[in-house]
C-alpha cells in the first residue's frame, strides 16, 4: 500500500492560486493528476525551500506567475493569427525585460520558476534533464558546469543539487537575473558553489579568459531571445571542452514578450547546432497542449550535444 504523501505547501499554493486567479484554479490538480507522486515531491520540496513558509512571498510569486502566463497566452493568440512574433529588436527586449529590475523580480523570474512545475511540457523537460543529462554530471570526474542565460537559476540549482561537489558558473546579460539566481540558490544551500558574471558571450567570448572552457554547458530558453542564434551557438561551442556535453533547450512556435527568433520545428534548431560545430547525441520535444485545430502550439525542444 502506498504511503500518502502530505503536501501542505502545495495545498496552500493551490488555495492562493484559486483565490488570486479563479480561472487557473485547476492548474495544480491537472499537474498532480498527470505526474503524480514524482511531481508532488518535487514541487512540495521547492515550495518549502524557496518560500520557507512565507505565504506572503508565495502569494507575490503566484501573482507574477499569473501575469507571466497570461501575457504569454495573449501573445500566443496573436501569434496564432499572424504566425510571426511581434517585431522587436534584442535591445528593445533587453530594456523591457532583462534590465527591468521590477519586471524580472515580480513577473519574469517567478513566472519562469513556477512554470517549470505547472506547465506539463516544462516539467517533462525537467524529467528528461534528470534522466539524460544530470547523471552525466554526477558521474563525471570533473563536475564543473557553465550555464549561459541563467534566468531564474532553475537548471543551475538542479545540477548543483545532484552531488555535493558540483560547481557552477553562469553568464548572463541581466544583473537582475544573476541576483535572483543567487537568492534562489542561497535558499537551497548551494550558493557557495556557484558564481555568476555579467557578460554577453557573443560580444565577449569567455574562451578569451582564463578557465574559459567547461566539461558541461547548459543553456535553456536563450536562443529564442536572440537576433542571431547561430553566433551564440558558435560561442557556446568554443566554451565546451573536447568531449564535453551540453544541454541546450529552446522553444518552438511559442510567443512571449522577449521572444524574437522564431523556430517552427526542432529540425531547424538541430541544423543550427550542427552548423555551429556540435554533434547532437539525443533530443526530446514536448508540447504544451494538443492543438484544437491547426493552430501552432507552444513546444520546447532539448538537445544533448557534444
Amino acid at each position, binding site marked *: 500500500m502506498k504511503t500518502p504523501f502530505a503536501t501542505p505547501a502545495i495545498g496552500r499554493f493551490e488555495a492562493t492560486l484559486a483565490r488570486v*486567479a*479563479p*480561472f487557473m*484554479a*485547476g492548474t495544480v490538480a491537472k499537474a498532480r493528476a498527470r505526474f503524480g507522486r514524482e511531481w508532488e515531491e518535487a514541487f512540495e520540496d521547492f515550495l518549502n525551500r524557496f518560500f520557507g513558509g512565507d505565504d506572503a512571498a508565495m502569494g507575490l510569486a503566484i501573482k507574477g506567475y499569473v501575469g507571466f502566463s*497570461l*501575457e504569454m*497566452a495573449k501573445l500566443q*493568440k496573436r501569434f496564432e493569427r499572424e504566425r510571426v512574433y511581434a517585431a522587436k529588436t534584442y535591445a528593445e527586449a533587453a530594456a523591457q525585460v532583462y534590465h527591468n529590475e521590477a519586471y524580472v523580480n515580480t*513577473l519574469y523570474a517567478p513566472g519562469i520558476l513556477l512554470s517549470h512545475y505547472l506547465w506539463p511540457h516544462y516539467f517533462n523537460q525537467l524529467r528528461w534533464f534528470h534522466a539524460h543529462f544530470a547523471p552525466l554530471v554526477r558521474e563525471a570526474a570533473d563536475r564543473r558546469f557553465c550555464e549561459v542565460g541563467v534566468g531564474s537559476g532553475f537548471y543551475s540549482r538542479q545540477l548543483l543539487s545532484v552531488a555535493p561537489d558540483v560547481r557552477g558558473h553562469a553568464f548572463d546579460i541581466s544583473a537582475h537575473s544573476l541576483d535572483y539566481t543567487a537568492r534562489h540558490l542561497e535558499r537551497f544551500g548551494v550558493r557557495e558553489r556557484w558564481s555568476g558574471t555579467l557578460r554577453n558571450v557573443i560580444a565577449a567570448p569567455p574562451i578569451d579568459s582564463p578557465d574559459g572552457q567547461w566539461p558541461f554547458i547548459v543553456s535553456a530558453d536563450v536562443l529564442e531571445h536572440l537576433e542571431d542564434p547561430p553566433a551564440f551557438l558558435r560561442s557556446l561551442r568554443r566554451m565546451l571542452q573536447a568531449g564535453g556535453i551540453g544541454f541546450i533547450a529552446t522553444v518552438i512556435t511559442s510567443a512571449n514578450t522577449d521572444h524574437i527568433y522564431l523556430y517552427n520545428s526542432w529540425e531547424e534548431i538541430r541544423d543550427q547546432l550542427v552548423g555551429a560545430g556540435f554533434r547532437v547525441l539525443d533530443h526530446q520535444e514536448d508540447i504544451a497542449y494538443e492543438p484544437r485545430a491547426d493552430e501552432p502550439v507552444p513546444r520546447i525542444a532539448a538537445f544533448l550535444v557534444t
Partner: protein
Amino acid sequence: MSLDRLQSIFRDVFRDDTLVIHRDLTAKDVKGWDSFNHINLIVAIEDAYGVTFRTDEMAGAAAVGNLVDVLRSKGIAIAID
C-alpha cells in the same frame, strides 16, 4: 454602453446562451472559464471595445466586476448590478 454586448461576448466565449452576467460572477461560477478561455474572453473584449488590457488588468480580472471596472477606466461605462 449596453450590458448586452458584454453579455453576448460571455455567451459566445463560453458557448452558453443562457449565461447571465453580474458583477460578482467569477470563474468558479462559469463552466469552462479556465486560463485558455480567460484569454479568449480578454481578446474578444479588446476587439469589441477597441481597448488593450495591461498584464495586471488581465490578471486582476477575477470577476465580471473587475472587467467592467477596467473598461470604465478606459472610458467605457457599462451599467451592471
